[in-house]
């Protein structure tokens, strides 16, 4: 699926756009990490929880469950709320 990368994570991708596949959102994130090592841990903690300032939107709908199915023709938008002052 197509993935829109937020600016704070483009040091990994060198691009605003990526394309990876997976049957679930967790698999999509894992595939992103295979392609861009280290990117997943900045978004998902070691307990498998989505980090506080990260939001995932699949085809315009916010997804809070990493087990949600992903559509190969869909679009994932990763949003990162700025924090830290």
């Amino acid at each position, binding site marked *: 699926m197509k993935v829109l990368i937020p600016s704070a994570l483009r040091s990994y991708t060198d691009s605003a756009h990526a394309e990876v596949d997976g049957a679930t959102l967790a698999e999509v994130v894992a595939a992103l990490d295979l392609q861009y090592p*280290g990117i997943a841990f900045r978004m998902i*903690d*070691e307990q498998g929880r989505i*980090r506080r*300032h990260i939001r995932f939107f699949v085809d315009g709908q916010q997804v809070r469950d990493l087990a949600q199915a992903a559509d190969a023709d869909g679009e994932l938008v990763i949003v990162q709320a700025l*924090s830290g*002052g």
Partner: protein
Amino acid sequence: MSSPSAVTLLVATRKGAWLYHGDAERKTWRVDGPHFLGHIISHLVLDPRDGRTLLAAAKTGHLGPTMFRSTDFGQTWSEAARPPAFAKVEGGVGRSVDHTFWLTPGHASQPGVWYAGTSPQGLFRSEDGGDTWAPCSSINDDPRYLEWMGTAQDGTPDGPKLHSIIVDPRDPMHMYMAMSGGGVHESFDAGRSFAPLIDGLEVVEGFDVTQPTFHDPHCIRQCPANPDRLYQQNHCGIFRLDRPATRWRRIGGGMPAEVGDIGFPMVVHPRDPDTAWVFPMDGTAVWPRTSPGGKPAVFVTRDGGEQWQRQDAGLPAEQAWWTVKRQAMTADTQPSVGLYFGTTSGELWASSDEGAHWHCIARHLPDIYAVEVAERPAT
């Protein structure tokens, strides 16, 4: 020193890292930075065993933590393949690292070994120069230690921190570590198990002094010239411990009453175990955590803490309300020992005569979190 060495200051700030390369006289400093602009860098440390590997503990306000590594003294950086992370607990109830706070290179006989302390409080070990990290689960997941560590809501405002990881230069199995909410602890098996070392320390009035969870060590240093001697700046004063004794003794009583013996950093002399420095702060009432009276000063003892002398020549005489965080003050090992500290207002100060005179190296940096010395052969 057997051969001349060059001093570089490794400055970690709330918005990135800077390296300040000193000339042979430590009078002029060439700035290199910012590195990782916008990242919160809690600690930047050189591996003294190879003189070129740097580790930087990093995060941003909106992304998870990571670790950056350089094997060419900061010319290029790469990200650690597996930064410190707690063991996964099924059901999503486990802890997650918010940030790595403290970095300590391992023993001279164990190249590649590093230790890290985090917030929430946890101990981590790397055996490959900081590229991959494993949790010291025997401590991190020990029910007794978990109780002493408390939660992210306990203690220090931006999260309790495991810090002051010390590896005995005589024995890689012998270690100390401290927790800002959890006390001082000692290990004889390279960090697999620890035991509290809190006798003689004080806690805030009304709390049980026998419970490690109420202890708040701020910074502990081991004397290179006498590794049996430890100095500690604690929430409740300045303390000293001479092993094999196990009872700390408060040595801050000689500080001026209007200054007190509260502060965060603790610095020891590289060759004289009777000499140490502190940077007091205002710990009265609501804990302003500023220089007492707006008059910053370093204090030195030359007799193991019996007496303390004020060292403020060159520092602002009044209306300076910054202070110095726990790993933001350090010393080099030059024949005339250099002292350095970074302030919460982004100033970097230096003395090349053991604190007698101070001058400002840099201003207008972000809030400085850590200052470390890197000494390498002069080129």
